Structures are given as structure tokens and as C-alpha cells.
């Protein structure tokens, strides 16, 4: 059909034109959504008042994404209309994206309804009678049907699982094994699984319908607004047509060699193949799912202040996770980071209050350097113990974890807390001349301008070339150039934002102090609230409250991630880390000094832990003897979620970043959704296992 369409045959023009028209329709729909959101017709989440100037974060994102989407749809529709072969590939992608968008919109209605309804059901035992009385018989019937179907499905699944386990446990009885029933239980046929899933989804839909009818009826719970029902309509408009069109376009594969080649890499396959290459596939999927889930479940989640607080909470652990990732890739791991953190924090505080052995009481910067040096020594002890005794790192660091902890326990007598404020009247302050900020701002502008001048023209040429090539053969390999251009532009924009912030700081403090010297706390430089250093936060009409908990450690963390990512992927040191963990013998045979690599990694972990300890202490200038207890396992959890293999040889720094973000999002999100924070560790447990299973599944047979 489609082949004939591209050859320009008259009788085949209907179907192609239909798809083109459909995609054009999507373009209009996307534009309408962008328009509606931007001008306040469709409010998403909480907003201060309905003026188009104060979009909240979700709305800003939705507007921008809808506009981009709409533009891509227009391009695709035009390509189909003018009968370019390559546009078929484009349309496949656009349809795929549309299905995803539709699904996301549908979920954004379903998740809050389901969540609120379940919470209601849990809280009110007499809800059923109330439903029958208030919401009418239909809702209560839907609820009963939904609940019945869901529980039947769960029961069947549990039954099959239990029977399979029993069959697996009991010794194979010859007569039993050959019965068809046994085979059905041990490996259920596809049809059976599909049937169960279908019944389950019908049940869930019934449940949701009941929820949608009931939740608004409850005083105090009426957060399902008309807007959410409008969203339901938009979601269906996107999802259903795109889904069927995608199926139709996929069938074209059969028709000619040329088209089959062009369509061999369907969006699903493309994404799967690329995910399989990435060590942190599970973390990426998990990150997106959890981010979307919480965003849909509660309006508060994407508020700048909650984003800032979850980032600040995990930034210090994230810094340690970078080092632990390195160590894990090289095939070892470190249980002693919590204790190292405690010792470093204690030393830092002690040097400032009681004095260092040789130097006496020192200032914050010297104290920080000395404390990090102590962390270096502790890491070196770990490494030397490991390579000289050849004991597994689990044992070595289990020992040092307990041993290092003794240092803080002995140094700070029973239950006391070493506080900075007990020894000094005020926090340490450094006077920075205005000129420093000015110079920094000028240097920043210089760097941005120079990079832009050097990089952007080439990137633009590459991207525009790729764009024009695509018109001819639909080769998706060229999209790399476009993505690169976009990413570099984004990086430049971020740099520019930092420069603007510096200038803002300058002007704010310049006018506030009236003089030449700006007073900044030392601790603020290590890990202060960024926006309190600067001016009133009002970035591009996005309201950022000034007391939002944006800590400077977040910035340091991202900088560390960038540096360590480059070192791991693009230097020979990084290569030798992978080789050391992947096959120690081979690494040694190729002349890699395996022992040195391991020692270096232990030292890197300790140094990063030391830096994290400084952040922690700067944020809260007091040290108790148990500081950092339990951090080692949390950090290992982040790293494992991020895709590092416990056996070594595989992992990524970006994965550890995602792992830490997932950790932070759960910590904040569960509270915001209204689920008890006591469930946090349980959720994390499930997430760890799910992430690792996902990683293994996506990677497929690659591991060997």
C-alpha cells in the first residue's frame, strides 16, 4: 500500500494521505495544548494565579515540549504529503512518540485517581455504603467488578506461582511430569498470560472508573478537576489513533526491500538496542518512570523547592557514589566510607575548634585540606591492606569500617556533639572584593563567548547537513549531529545562566553593602544555599523562592560527575579500571598495573568521601560520633541501581548519578504523595532488585 503511495499511484493515495492528515492533526493538537497551557486555559498543577506570566515548572516543560512536538509533526506530515520515502521512518517515530505522549497523559489521569482512591479506601472503612448512597449504583458496581477481577487475577497468579514452586520442589514423579497440567503450570502458554493480563487491566479500568466517580464526591479530597477530565480526552485523542496508525505503518515492512531496510530499525528496536549498550539502562527507565509517576501523582513534586531539597539531600551521597562506582568497576568495594566520613568530619571540626597536631587551631580552608588528607590516608590504608594481604575487599573494609568508627567513638566522649558554635561566636566569614566577582563574571563571559565562537558554527553546519541528508535517505545515524548541536547549545545556556547569576550576585551585594567587600561565609562557599548568596530568585518568570534549599554541593556534585565521567570513559586510566574489574589476568597480561589501579581507586573513594564530609559539616556544623553510619550501604545501593556490577568490569558514573537521583526522588516523593516515609526502605529494596533485573534483561546475552 505505502510502497504504491510513494511510487505515486493514484489508487493508493488514500492511505498515505490518511496517515499524513492524522499526523497533521497531531501537530494541530500539540499546538493547541501548548497554546492552552501557555495562556492559562489549561492549568496543570498548582499555580499562584491564572496569569500567563507565572507558569509553573510543569507547564513550562509541557509548553516547550508540545511546540517541539508540533513542529516535528508538521515536518513529517509535509514529508508524507510530498511523497518522500524517508518520511515513512519519520512518521513511524512521530507515531511512536505520540503513542507515548497519549499513554503518559492517560496515566497522568489514572495515577492520581488510583492513588487517591486507594488511600480513601484504606482510610474509610464505611466507604462502600457511602459510595452506594452518594455516587450511585453504577460506581459501586464498577468498584465491585473491578475489585473482584483484580483479586481473581492476583489469586490465579499466586496460585500458579505456588504450584510451580511445588512442582519444582518435589522430586520429579514420572507420572506427574508428563501430564499437560504440570507443563501448563511450569511454563504457562502465552495465551494464558495474555488472558490474565487482559482481565487484570479490565479490572483496573473498572476500579479507576469507580475512583473517578467517587473521589470528587469526598469533601477535602476533590482534587479531580475538570481539567483532569479534559486531559483524559486529549490522552485518548493522542493514544488511540496513533496506536492504530503505528500498527498500520509497521505492516508496510512486508511490501518492498527498500522499505523493509528503511524500517528495519523500528523505534522500539532502536531504543532497546541503544539501552542495551548503556550500563545504566535500568536506572534510565527507572528514573523516567519514577519522575513521571511522582509528577503525575502530586503537583508539589516538580516545585522548585522540592526538587532543590531532594537534590540537596542526595548531593553528598552522590559524590561518594562516584568513587564507589569506580571502585566497583575495578572489582572491589568499600564498606568503610561511612566511617571515613565520620573521621573526616570529626577532624575537620576538631582542627577548627581544638587545633591540629602541628598547626594549632586553623581556618576552615586549611582544616578542610588537612581533613581530606586524613581521608586520603584512611583510603590508602584500605588499599594497601587489600593488595598486601589479598583478603577480599569485603573483609578488609568490614574490618576498617569498625576500626575507623572507633576513632570517632573514642574522640567524642559518650553522646556528645562537637559543635562549631560552642567554640566560636560566629561562623567563619571571608571578605571577597567585588572585583573578584567582576573578574569571575568577565572570565565566564569570555569562556562562553569563545566556546560558542569555536564550537557552534561547526555544530550548526553538521546539524543542518544532517537535516538535509535525512530528507533523502532517512538515515537515522545522522541524528547524532543534531543531538550534539542541541546538547552543546544547552551546555552553553547553562554556562550563561551561571554568568548571569554571578552578575546578579555582584549587583545585589554591590548595592547592599555599598562598599567594595562582600562578606561570604566559608561554609556557604563549601555548601551554602546558592540563592541566599545571590539575589532574589526570579529566573525567566519561574518563581523560585529564595529560601529554596539549593545547596552549592549540588553544583560541585554535577561538576564531579562530569569530570569523573570523562576520566572513566576517555582516558587510559578509565580503560585500565574496566580491564582490572573485567578480567584481572588479562589486564595484568597486557601490562596494566592492577594493584596500583585498585589502590588508586580506594584513595579516590576516600578523597571523595572526605569532600562529602566537608559538605556535610558545612551544612550542619556539628559532628556526633555516629556520623555517616549506614551510608556505605546506601551508597552501594545507589551505585547498583545505576548499573554497576558487583562482580566488576561494568558500570558508569552517570548511572551512579541516576541512582542517587532515584534515591532522592523516592525520599521526597513518597512524603509528598502522602505515603508513610516508613515505607521508604522497603521501596528502595524493591527498586534495587527491579533495577538490577531490568539491567540484566535489557543487556540480554551480552554478559559473559
Amino acid at each position, binding site marked *: 500500500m505505502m510502497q504504491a503511495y510513494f511510487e505515486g499511484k493514484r489508487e493508493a493515495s488514500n492511505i498515505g494521505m490518511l496517515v499524513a492528515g492524522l499526523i497533521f492533526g497531531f501537530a494541530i493538537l500539540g499546538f493547541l495544548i501548548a497554546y492552552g497551557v501557555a495562556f492559562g486555559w489549561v492549568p496543570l498543577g498548582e499555580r499562584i494565579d491564572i496569569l500567563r506570566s507565572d507558569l509553573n515548572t510543569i507547564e513550562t516543560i509541557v509548553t516547550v515540549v508540545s511546540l517541539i512536538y508540533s513542529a516535528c509533526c508538521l515536518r513529517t506530515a509535509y514529508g508524507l504529503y510530498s511523497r518522500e520515502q524517508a518520511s515513512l521512518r519519520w512518521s513511524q517515530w512521530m507515531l511512536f512518540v505520540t503513542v507515548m505522549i497519549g499513554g503518559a497523559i492517560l496515566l497522568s489521569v489514572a495515577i492520581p485517581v488510583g492513588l487517591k482512591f486507594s488511600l480513601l479506601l484504606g482510610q474509610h472503612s464505611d466507604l462502600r455504603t457511602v459510595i452506594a448512597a452518594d455516587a450511585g449504583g453504577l460506581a459501586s458496581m464498577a468498584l465491585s467488578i473491578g475489585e473482584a477481577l483484580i483479586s481473581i487475577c492476583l489469586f490465579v497468579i499466586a496460585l500458579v506461582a505456588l504450584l510451580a514452586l511445588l512442582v519444582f520442589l518435589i522430586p520429579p514423579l514420572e507420572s506427574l511430569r508428563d501430564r499437560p497440567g504440570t507443563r501448563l503450570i511450569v511454563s504457562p502458554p502465552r495465551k494464558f498470560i495474555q488472558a490474565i493480563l487482559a482481565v487484570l487491566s479490565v479490572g483496573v479500568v473498572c476500579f479507576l472508573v469507580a475512583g473517578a466517580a467517587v473521589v470528587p464526591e469526598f469533601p477535602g479530597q476533590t482534587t479531580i478537576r475538570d481539567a483532569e477530565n479534559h486531559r483524559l480526552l486529549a490522552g485518548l485523542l493522542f493514544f488511540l489513533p496513533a496506536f492504530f496508525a503505528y500498527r498500520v505503518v509497521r505492516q508496510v515492512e512486508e511490501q518492498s526491500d527498500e522499505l523493509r531496510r528503511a524500517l528495519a530499525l523500528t523505534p522500539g528496536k532502536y531504543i532497546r538496542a541503544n539501552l542495551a*549498550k548503556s550500563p545504566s539502562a535500568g536506572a534510565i527507565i527507572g528514573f523516567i518512570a519514577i519522575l513521571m509517576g511522582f509528577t503525575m501523582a502530586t503537583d508539589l513534586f516538580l516545585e522548585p523547592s522540592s526538587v532543590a531539597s531532594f537534590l540537596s539531600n542526595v548531593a553528598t551521597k552522590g559524590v561518594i557514589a562516584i568513587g564507589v562506582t569506580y571502585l566497583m568497576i575495578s572489582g572491589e568495594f568499600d564498606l568503610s566510607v561511612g566511617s571515613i566520613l565520620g573521621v573526616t568530619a570529626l577532624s575537620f571540626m576538631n582542627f577548627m575548634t581544638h587545633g591540629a597536631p602541628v598547626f594549632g587551631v586553623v581556618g576552615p580552608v586549611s582544616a578542610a585540606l588537612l581533613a581530606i588528607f586524613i581521608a586520603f590516608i584512611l583510603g590508602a590504608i584500605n588499599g594497601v591492606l587489600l593488595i598486601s594481604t589479598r583478603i577480599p575487599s569485603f573483609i578488609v573494609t568490614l574490618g576498617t569500617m569498625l576500626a575507623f568508627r572507633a576513632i570517632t567513638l573514642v574522640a567524642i566522649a559518650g553522646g556528645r556533639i562537637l559543635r562549631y558554635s560552642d567554640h566560636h561566636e560566629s561562623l567563619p566569614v571571608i571578605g571577597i572584593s567585588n572585583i573578584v566577582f567582576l573578574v569571575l563574571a568577565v572570565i565566564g563571559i569570555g569562556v562562553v563567548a569563545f566556546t560558542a565562537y569555536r564550537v557552534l558554527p561547526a555544530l550548526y553546519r553538521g546539524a543542518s547537513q544532517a537535516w538535509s541528508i535525512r530528507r533523502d535517505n532517512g538515515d537515522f545515524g545522522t541524528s547524532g549531529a543534531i543531538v550534539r548541536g542541541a546538547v552543546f547549545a544547552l551546555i552553553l545556556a547553562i554556562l550563561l545562566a551561571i554568568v548571569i547569576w554571578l552578575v546578579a550576585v555582584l549587583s545585589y551585594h554591590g548595592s547592599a553593602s555599598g562598599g567594595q567587600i562582600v562578606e561570604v561565609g566559608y561554609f556557604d562557599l563549601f555548601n551554602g544555599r546558592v540563592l541566599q548568596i545571590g539575589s532574589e530568585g526570579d529566573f525567566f518568570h519561574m518563581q523560585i523562592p529564595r529560601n529554596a534549599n539549593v545547596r552549592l554541593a549540588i553544583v560541585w556534585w554535577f561538576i564531579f560527575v562530569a569530570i569523573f565521567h*570523562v576520566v572513566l570513559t*576517555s*582516558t*587510559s586510566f*578509565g*580503560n*585500565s579500571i*574496566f*580491564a582490572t574489574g*573485567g*578480567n584481572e*589476568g*588479562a*589486564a*595484568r*597480561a*597486557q*601490562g*596494566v*598495573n592492577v594493584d596500583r589501579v585498585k589502590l588508586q581507586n580506594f584513595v579516590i573513594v576516600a578523597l571523595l568521601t572526605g569532600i562529602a564530609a566537608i559538605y556535610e559539616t558545612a551544612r550542619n556544623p556539628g559532628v556526633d560520633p555516629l556520623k555517616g553510619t549506614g551510608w556505605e550501604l546506601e551508597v552501594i545501593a545507589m551505585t547498583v541501581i545505576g548499573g554497576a556490577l558487583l562482580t566488576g*568490569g*561494568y558500570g558508569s558514573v552517570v548511572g551512579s548519578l541516576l541512582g542517587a537521583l532515584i534515591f532522592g526522588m523516592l525520599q521526597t516523593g513518597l512524603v509528598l504523595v502522602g505515603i508513610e516515609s516508613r515505607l521508604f526502605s522497603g521501596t528502595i529494596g524493591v527498586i534495587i532488585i527491579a533495577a538490577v533485573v531490568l539491567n540484566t534483561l535489557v543487556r540480554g*546475552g*551480552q*554478559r*559473559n
Partner: protein
Amino acid sequence: MEYKQKNDNALVDMIDIHKYFGSVQVLRGIDFHVDRQEIVGLLGDNGAGKSTLIKVLTGFHSLTRGQIFFDDQAVNIHSPHDARELGIETVHQDLALVPLMSIARNFWLGQEPTYEVGPFRFLDKKMMASESIQALADVGIHIRDSEETVGTMSGGERQSIAIGRAVYFGKKLLILDEPTSALSVGETQKVLDYTIAAKEKGMSVIFITHNIRHVYEVADRFTIIERGHKLGDFYKSEVSENEVADMIVTGQIPERLRLYEEEEGGD
């Protein structure tokens, strides 16, 4: 004790090599040499000490007593890195490649090409990819994608890449430790081709195996080791395949060759 080089023109001359692991005497005074551009089959039954001898030469083990001459120089080889500096490349039986790393990264492991940006050095990934594909193609190994991980490949493909890498980097001596033990007939033939390719490049090759059939075709000379001693050196013209096989199994030199050996030892 002072040692003197016995074979004047040899690339490698190992003299009176002893290696004890505690009280276990694995090598008990072995003399072994490799001439320039020569393929030597190092033969012996399992546990005869072939691998230990080679690990002494490549710096994995330090020797208890004895001396190694390389390129007419007395050398002390303390680490695999030292051996590499001398121009010795080894393909080990069990520890050749890192399965979770890509072909290009495996190929360049330990001697990655870099470019400098200020004080920093970064991997030259483009060159790593193109050069590894080219270098492997030169010895007859054709790969699809240098970014593919080695773990996805078959045993023969992996062995090919390890050998291709050794041929590419090896300057003087290539050591193959049981390269064919896990390979199919076709793959074994390929390995033999690579061996000849290395010789034509001007390298010497030590081919370790306990299966004479794998090496008889390409080797110039056989050195047979038996329980830590050397049984003898035999040029291919002197012995038949079956005689060598018998010697490996029985540890006895046949009557016909014994006289010849004594004459050799005499001069």
C-alpha cells in the same frame, strides 16, 4: 653464577632455568632458545612445565636460578610490562581479553593512543576504532563493529582478536600459549595462518601446545619438555609427526635420534 650465551644468533636464549614454587621444582635446569624468524613448537604433556617456562620469560614469574638473553643482551624481566618493552607479545590461554569491553578497547588495552589537551591526555577513540579494524583486517580477521563487546563473540573469534592484537603490537617475539585447545578445525587452521603471517612480518613465534597435530605443519623446530627437563630440540626435517607424538607421551627419545642428539651435544 655467571652465565654465557650459548647460541650466538638466537633472539631468545634461556640458560639453565630453574623455577621452584616452595619445595616443588617445576623447572630443573632448562636451556631453551629461539632463533630469529623461527617458529618453535614448545611441546610437552600437561604439567610438564611449558607454561611456567613461558611465564618466566614474560615476567609473570621470577626465576629461581638461570639467565635470559634477549637480542644478545642479558635481561631481567620482572613484569609483563618489561617483556612488552622488549618486544615480546603473549596470547595467554585463559587470560586474553576482557569480555565486557569493546574490541577496540581490548585491542589497545595497556597502550592506548592518546592526544593531549593542555596537561590532560584523552583516548583517541577514532583512531582506536579505525586502526584496530585495519590492523585485524591485515592479518585476515574481519570484524563488523569495533564497539561490539568481546563477550558476545565466539571462542574462535576471541582467540583471533587476541592473536591479531599480538601480531600487531609484537615487534620481535610472539608467544601463543595453547591457542588452539578450544577451537574447531577451521578456526585452528586460521590460527596457523596468523602464525605464518607473524613470521613473514619478521617475528619469531613460540607455539605452545600438547597436541602435535596443531603445530607440525607450521613449526620449524620442536622443543620437547618432560617433567621440568628438556628432552631435546628437533628440527622438522629430522623427525616425523608420530615420533614427536610418541616422545611427548613416553618421555623417551627414540633410538634413531639418540645418537644424533649426542653428536649435537658434543660440539
